[in-house]
Structures are given as structure tokens and as C-alpha cells.
């Protein structure tokens, strides 16, 4: 079995190399200093024996040691100048901002994950209807489009959090790609599952709105802007989407009840 990870371990030197390059060369510096000190001490040992003699050799040794130390220090300096300055720090400070409340942020993050999960579910449905033995290209295209839309919904919520000053150090575990339920759908059952999924998402957006409205009497933890955005853009899209799906379901159901397979065939080709 071929393993991508094994391959990338072997052929992934760039990041590591740069990391070594960019990091301060502290360990190397330590080694240099330690070496210099050792050399100095070694040179001192004969000096103890000949202490009273005070021969010129002693002076010579001292000079040599300090010269060595200087060279090493110069080399370290050079190395530091060669080092890349990769991290650019900022000392900017903001008072009272970012101002989003913790429960609201947490619910937003959960909502983002839900949108991504919905996208995965639609992707699985699209893959199913693309199968040669199922052959429902209309349904497949519909669900591919839905998968893209859900991903965009997630991305837009992420962008909103960035706009409000969030997601500075907590991006890493924002999204998890997890497996989804797969069935032998029929056109009708898939649309019904999709409707159920949309209903759940709508409910979860309503809950999110409630969370972000806060529960203080003076409404000072009410996130008016986010609430308005979720209501005006997201709920709007959810409700029209649900209506569209419901319409499709009833039409298909009518066609199936009188014409069975022909109903689904025609519906798919006209989707």
C-alpha cells in the first residue's frame, strides 16, 4: 500500500530546512562558546605548573586563546547577519477590541463545522448519483452545486470572524473533514435527506442567532451586526433553499406516483 505520508516525509525538506534556517542559531552558538572555553582551559593547565616561571610562552598562550575566542564570536556575528528575518512582529494594541462574546464565537465555530459537514454530505450524494449504475447526472450536478455552496457558506462565516478581529491564533482546529452517512439513495429519498439536512442547518442558525443575541436585559451583549447578518443573509438563503427543495420533492413525488421509474428519469434529465 502506497502511503502519501511516507512519501512526503521523504520529499518534504523545504519547510524543515527553512525552519532551521530561520530559527536563531542558539545551539550552534552554545557549542562554539563551549569549545572556545574548553580550549582556553586546556591551555591554562600547563600554566599552573609553570606559574612562578612567568615565561613568555604563557603570554603567547593567553593571546592565542583570546584571539580564538574573538574569531569564534565574529563568526557567530556573521552567521546571525546571514540569518533570515522571517517573523515580523507587531506591537499594535487595541482597547476593547475584538469585542465578540465567547459563547457566540464558540457557536459560530460549530456552525462553520456544520456547514462543512453538510458540504461533505452533498459531495457523497453527488458521488453516488454519478455512479454508472445509478446514472442520475441531473441529481449529481445538483448535489455538486450544493456541496460547493455549503463550503462557501462555511468560508463566509470564517471571513466574518476574521472581519470582527477573531481567528488570530485559533485557526488550526477550525475545520475537520469527517466521514458521512452513505445510502443507496433514490432520487426522492436523496431530496428528502437534503431537506432534512437543510432544516437542521436552519434550526442551528436560529440557535446561533439566539446565542449571539445574548441574554442580558440591557442587551449589552447583543451582537446586533452578526445577528442581522445571519438573519438577513443566512436565514434568507436557508428558507428559499428549503422552499426550492420542497417544490422539487412534491413534483418528483407526483411524477413517481403515476409513472414510477419514468418519473425519476424525466425529472433527472430536466433538473
Amino acid at each position: 500500500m502506497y502511503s502519501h505520508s511516507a512519501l512526503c516525509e521523504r520529499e518534504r525538506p523545504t519547510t524543515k530546512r527553512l525552519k532551521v534556517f530561520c530559527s536563531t542559531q542558539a545551539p550552534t552558538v552554545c557549542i562554539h562558546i563551549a569549545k572556545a572555553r574548553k580550549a582556553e582551559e586546556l591551555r591554562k593547565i600547563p600554566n599552573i605548573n609553570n606559574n612562578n616561571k612567568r615565561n613568555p610562552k604563557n603570554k603567547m598562550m593567553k593571546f592565542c586563546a583570546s584571539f580564538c575566542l574573538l574569531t569564534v564570536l565574529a563568526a557567530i556575528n556573521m552567521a546571525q547577519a546571514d540569518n533570515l528575518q522571517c517573523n515580523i512582529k507587531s506591537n499594535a494594541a487595541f482597547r476593547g477590541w475584538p469585542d465578540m462574546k465567547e459563547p457566540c464565537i464558540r457557536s459560530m465555530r460549530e456552525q462553520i463545522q456544520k456547514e462543512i459537514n453538510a458540504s461533505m454530505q452533498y459531495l457523497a450524494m453527488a458521488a453516488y448519483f454519478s455512479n454508472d449504475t445509478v446514472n442520475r447526472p441531473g441529481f449529481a450536478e445538483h448535489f455538486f452545486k450544493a456541496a460547493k455552496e455549503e463550503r462557501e457558506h462555511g468560508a463566509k462565516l470564517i471571513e466574518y470572524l476574521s472581519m470582527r478581529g477573531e481567528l488570530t491564533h485559533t485557526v488550526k482546529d477550525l475545520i475537520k473533514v469527517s466521514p458521512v452517512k452513505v445510502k443507496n439513495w433514490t432520487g426522492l429519498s436523496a431530496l428528502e435527506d437534503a431537506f432534512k439536512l437543510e432544516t437542521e442547518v436552519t434550526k442551528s442558525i436560529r440557535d446561533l442567532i439566539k446565542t449571539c443575541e445574548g441574554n442580558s436585559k440591557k442587551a449589552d451583549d447583543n451582537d446586533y451586526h452578526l445577528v442581522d447578518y445571519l438573519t438577513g443573509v443566512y436565514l434568507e438563503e436557508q428558507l428559499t433553499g428549503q422552499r426550492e427543495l420542497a417544490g422539487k420533492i412534491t413534483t418528483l413525488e407526483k411524477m413517481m406516483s403515476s409513472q414510477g421509474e419514468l418519473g425519476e428519469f424525466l425529472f433527472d434529465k430536466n433538473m
Partner: protein
Amino acid sequence: MKYFIAFVLVAGLCALAQAQEQSCQVDVQSACGQSANALMAFFSGESGVANCNARYAAIGHLEHKMQDYIHLQLKKSYEYLLMATHFNSYQMNRPGFQKLYQGLSDRAFDDTIALIKQVTRRGGSVDFSKPHQQGVAQPPEVHLNELESLARALDNEKELTNGAIHVHTSATHGTTDNRIHDPEMAHYLQENFLSKQAASVRTLSGYANDLSKLVSVREPALSVYLFDEYLQKQ
């Protein structure tokens, strides 16, 4: 004795059914109840038109590799999305880098869909119901500085290229279980992935080298700002 004769008869029919070439037409004939095929189909436990599929050439052993590749693309798509998000924060504030990674994320997602279409076009299927080693690896490190992020992206692009090469190798040489060639799949990967990947690997390596030269100065903040501005225009 009666049972024995019946058993032999059944066994014989089964053997005959096995020997018969499995084709769509045979399936259709038996499903439509023509000739002895219907009886054979009954005994061999097959019904319907299972052989009326789109499978040929090496799809059997390419299917799983393509599935791995699809999951890899999907994972990278979300990793790039998070990288774009990281550079969109007010602390990083690098719209050029954000645009670069958002573009790569969108491309990887579109590629995921294109690959699903290709696998199913060839009669394969893609399974999203099992946790996948390519999909749920440890969360990627996305809090990177500008140069590190380019390095990471370059490594990612090479990983994606190698994924395509891996499927391509199996399609052309059939190195593993058998030696079935699959020129159609090989051609598809060459045309739609390998040349595109070559371009993106080259672009990113160019960026990484440019930026590493730019940040070799003592105060690189302005260099990085200008490089980001350059990325916005790409």
C-alpha cells in the same frame, strides 16, 4: 441418489454459468428470461444487469488510489482555506497571501469534484463513509509566517503532484497486482493534473526563493509588505 443427481445438475449449471463470458448482453438476455441463461442466472445467484457497467481496463485497482487522491485533495483544500484565513486576520493582514491560498483552496476543491466525475465516468465509485487516512490526519499547522507558509504550500503542491504521479504510474505500468494498462486514466491525469501541478510547483518555488532573498535584510517588514502587494496583483 435423487439428491445426488440434482446436486450434480446444479453444480454443472453453475460451472457452465461461470464459463460463460460475463457480458452486458448475457445479463440482459437472462434478465429478459430468454434461453437457458435465465436458469443459469438463477442458479449462479446473479440477477439484473450487473455487467452493464462502465468498468474496463485498470479501473479495478485504480479506483482505490483515485479515492486516496480525492481525499488528499479535499484535505489540502481545507488546509489552504485555513492558511488563507490565517493571513486574513488583522494581525497578519496579508491580502496577497490570502488570495494565493484561497485560490489554491478553491482549485483543490474543484479538482476534488473533477476527480469524482472522472472515477465515476470510468465506472468506479468514491466512498465518503469511512474515516480516511488522507482526510483526517493531524490538523495542519497553519499559523506560519509568510516565508514558512510558502514553503508549506510548495511541499503541499509536491505532495499533490506525487499523488497524481502515483495513480499515473499504476495506470501506465500496472506495477502492483497485474499489468493492465489504462491509457485513458493516464491521459486524463497528464492533461488535467500533471501539467497544472508542474506550473503551480514552479510558481511557488519562485515565490519562496524571491521572498527568502527579500527577508535576508535586517528589517524586512517593508520587503514583505511589497511582496504581498505583488501577490495581490497576480
